[in-house]
C-alpha cells in the first residue's frame, strides 16, 4: 500500500463538495501516479459520496488510473497527422524496444507506454512525447536515440 500521509493535505486543499470529485482525483493521481483504493475510500467519505459513484468516475476518465503508472510516461501521438505518417510503426517499434505493450507499465514501474490523441505538433509528425518533452519526426530507426531509460 502506498504511503498516504499527504492524502489529507490533498483532500483539505479543496472544499468538501461533490463537484470537487474530479479535481481531487486529478490531484491524487498527480501525487501517487494512480488512484489507490484506500485514497478513493477516503475521498468518498470526505465528499460524502457513495463509493460506487467515486469508482465509476475513476473508471471513466483516461487521465485517471486504477493501477500505478510508471515514473516516466512515454506517449505515442496517434493524432491523424501522426497516423498518416506512420504512428503505428512508431508504436510497434517502441513496444519492441521497451518490451511492453501500449497501455502497459514495465514490471520495474519505471516506464509506461501510452497513446495520446494529439499534442499539437502535427508539423513534426510522427511525434513521441516523453513526460512533457516532445520529440518530432521520429522513425522506427531513430527512436533508439530517445532518452528513454535515463
Amino acid at each position: 500500500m502506498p504511503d498516504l500521509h499527504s492524502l489529507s493535505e490533498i483532500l483539505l486543499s479543496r472544499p468538501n463538495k461533490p463537484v470537487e470529485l474530479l479535481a481531487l482525483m486529478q490531484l491524487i493521481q498527480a501525487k501517487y501516479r494512480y488512484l489507490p483504493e484506500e485514497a478513493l475510500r477516503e475521498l468518498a467519505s470526505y465528499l460524502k459520496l457513495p463509493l460506487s459513484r467515486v469508482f465509476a468516475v475513476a473508471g471513466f476518465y483516461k487521465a485517471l488510473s486504477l493501477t500505478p503508472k510508471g515514473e516516466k510516461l512515454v506517449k505515442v501521438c496517434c493524432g491523424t497527422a501522426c497516423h498518416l505518417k506512420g504512428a503505428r510503426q512508431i508504436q510497434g517499434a517502441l513496444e519492441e524496444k521497451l518490451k511492453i505493450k501500449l497501455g502497459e507499465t514495465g514490471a520495474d514501474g519505471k516506464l509506461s507506454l501510452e497513446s495520446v490523441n494529439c499534442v499539437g505538433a502535427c508539423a513534426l509528425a510522427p511525434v513521441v512525447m516523453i513526460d512533457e518533452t516532445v520529440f518530432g519526426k521520429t522513425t522506427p530507426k531513430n527512436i533508439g536515440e530517445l532518452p528513454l531509460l535515463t
Partner: protein
Amino acid sequence: MRLDSPAGLKDFKESLLAAPQGQSIWVCGGPGCLAAGSQVVFEALQYEAFKRELGHKVAYRVELTGCLGLCERGPLVECSPQGFFYEKVSSNDAPEIIDKTLMKGILVERLVTNPQKPNKEHLPFYEPQNRLIMRRFGQSSPGNFDDYIRTGGYEALCLAFELGPIKTSKRVEDSGLRGRGGGGFPTGLKWQALREAKGSPRYILANGDEGDPGAFMNRSLMEGDPFSIIEGLTIGAFALGASQGYIYVRHEYPLSVLRLKNAIEEAEDRGLLGKDILGTGFDFHLLIVEGGGAFVCGESTALMASIEGREGIPRVKYVRSTEAGLWEKPTILQNVETWANIPLIVLNGPDWFKSIGAPQNPGTKVFSLVGEVRNTGLVELPLGTKVSTLVNQVGGGVHKGRKFKAIQSGGPSGGCLPESALSLPLDFDNLTKAGAMMGSGGLIIMDDLSCMVDVARYFTGFLVEESCGKCAPCREALPLFHKILMDLTTGKGQKGDTDFLESQAKTLSTTALCGLGQSAANPILSTIKYFRQEYLEHEEGYCRSGRCQDMYFPKIDSEACKACGACQKSCPTSAIEGKKKEPRLVLVSKCISCGSCLKSCPFCAISAQRRPNA
C-alpha cells in the same frame, strides 16, 4: 494596481502607449515551435542580450509569443517594429539576431525566405489570411496584462458597460456569428434564448476540451491570448446576467491550464474579474475545470456532467441548455474561439463583422492545416475562402509529384472530401452539405498514398475507444464496424462489406443518443460516398494507395526511375535490387509491402500494384 473604473483603464492604456516600445524579438511559443525547440532559441536570445548588458542601454524585449502559424518552418521568430520574419531559427542564430536586429534593426538575410520582402505578410502562406483572433500573436506576450491592454484589450468590456446588457447582447445576436466548436449553431440564438430564459443562477461556459486528433487551434488560442477568452466570457456574463463561469480545458494541455489560471488571477488583481468589476458593481467569477481525458466531454451535456463532478456522459437533449443546463440551470456553452470573437464583435459592431467572410458565415475561422501539404500550421481565414486557396496557396500544395486525394475536416465527427471539394467555399453549410463538417477546424490533407479505408478505420477505432458506452447503437455498432474495416484493411474483407457498412452506418447516425454518436458514422459514410471504388478493391484484397500491408506489391516504373537508390536505402528487408545507374527492381519474395519505398521515392516512380491473387 487595481483599475476601478472604465476611465481608469483608459488612462492606464494611454500611459502604456506613451512609454517607448523599442526593439522586440518575438519567439513563437506555439505548440509546433515549442516542440521544434523554440524554448531553447528563446533562452539563447535572452542570454545573448543579457551578456551584452543591453538592459542598461536601450528599451528592448525578447519574449515568447502566441503561435505565429507556419509550424512547418519553425522555430519562428518575428521582430517588431520592422516585422522581419525569421524561419527555422536555431540557438546558433541567437548572437547574430541580437547583434544585428536587436541592436541595429538590421535584417539577418539568411533567415528569411525573401530578403526583399522579409515580412510574413508577403509569404503565400499568410497572404489570404486575416488574423483577427490571432492578431496578438507576434505582438504580445501571452498572459501579459499590459500587452493585452496596449493592444486594445478590455475596450469591448468598457463599451458593453456603456451600452448596457440588452444592446450588448443585440450586437452579438445581429452579428450572425456561428459557434466555432462544431456544427456552427447561430450564437445569437443561444444568446437570445439565455437572455429570455427564466431562472437563476445562470452559467457561462467555455469549451476548451479540444479532443479532435490533429487539431490545435483552441490550444494555441488558450496559450496565446488567454485574456481574449476571459474578456469574451465577462462580456457574455454581463450581457446575459450570469455571475459564475467555467472554462473546461483538456487535461493534455497543461500549459493552457497554466496560462488561463495566471490570466484569471491577474484579471482578478486588476479588478477585471471577481467582485465589482471596474467599479460598476458587476460581479463575475471564473473557474477552470480540467478535463479528465475523454473525447465525449466535448459534447455539451457530457461537458456539463463533467463540471458537476460526474462521468462525462451525455444525456438526451430535447430541452436546450439555455433552459436547463449546468445543475439544471440556464446555461450557455461556447467554444473558446467563439468567446474570443465576442470582444471584436462588441467593439466593432455587427456590420463590421458581417463584412468579413461569407453570407450566413461571417467572420474568420482558425484552422489547423496538417497532413501531406508543404506548409503545415495554424491559419486564420475568412469563412468562404475556397478550399483550393487553402490547399494550394496557403498549404503550398501536396508534396512534389504526389496527387491531392482528400481533405478531412471535422475530426472524428467529420468526413473526407475528394478533389471536387477544392472548388468549395470553406464554410459551415458547404462542408456539411458535402458530408463533412467544420468541427472545431482541424483540416487534414491527404495525398494518393493515403488509403481512405484505412482513414475510416483509424477514426472508427478512435471512436470505439472514446464512446462513452451509454447508448446501444454507438457502444455496440462501432466495434462491429471497426472489425469489418480492420478486415478490409488486412486482406480479410468480404464481398458486400461496403454496402453493409454504408446501410448500417446510416442507421447509426439516426439512432445514436448524442451528437457525437450520430456523427460517428461520418468518417465511414463520407469515404464510401466519395471513394467507393477503393472500398470495393479492398473487398478484393487490393489497396491502391500502398498503405494496407500485404494488399499490393510495389512496382518500379523503369522509365521514371532515376536509379537514385533512395528506395533501396529505405527498404528494411533488402527487397530492392539494381545495379548502378540502372532502374531498380523489387523482389516479390522478399517484399513485406511496408510501403517505405513508395514514400521514399523522390520521383514517385513506385506504384502499388494489385497482387496476382487479388
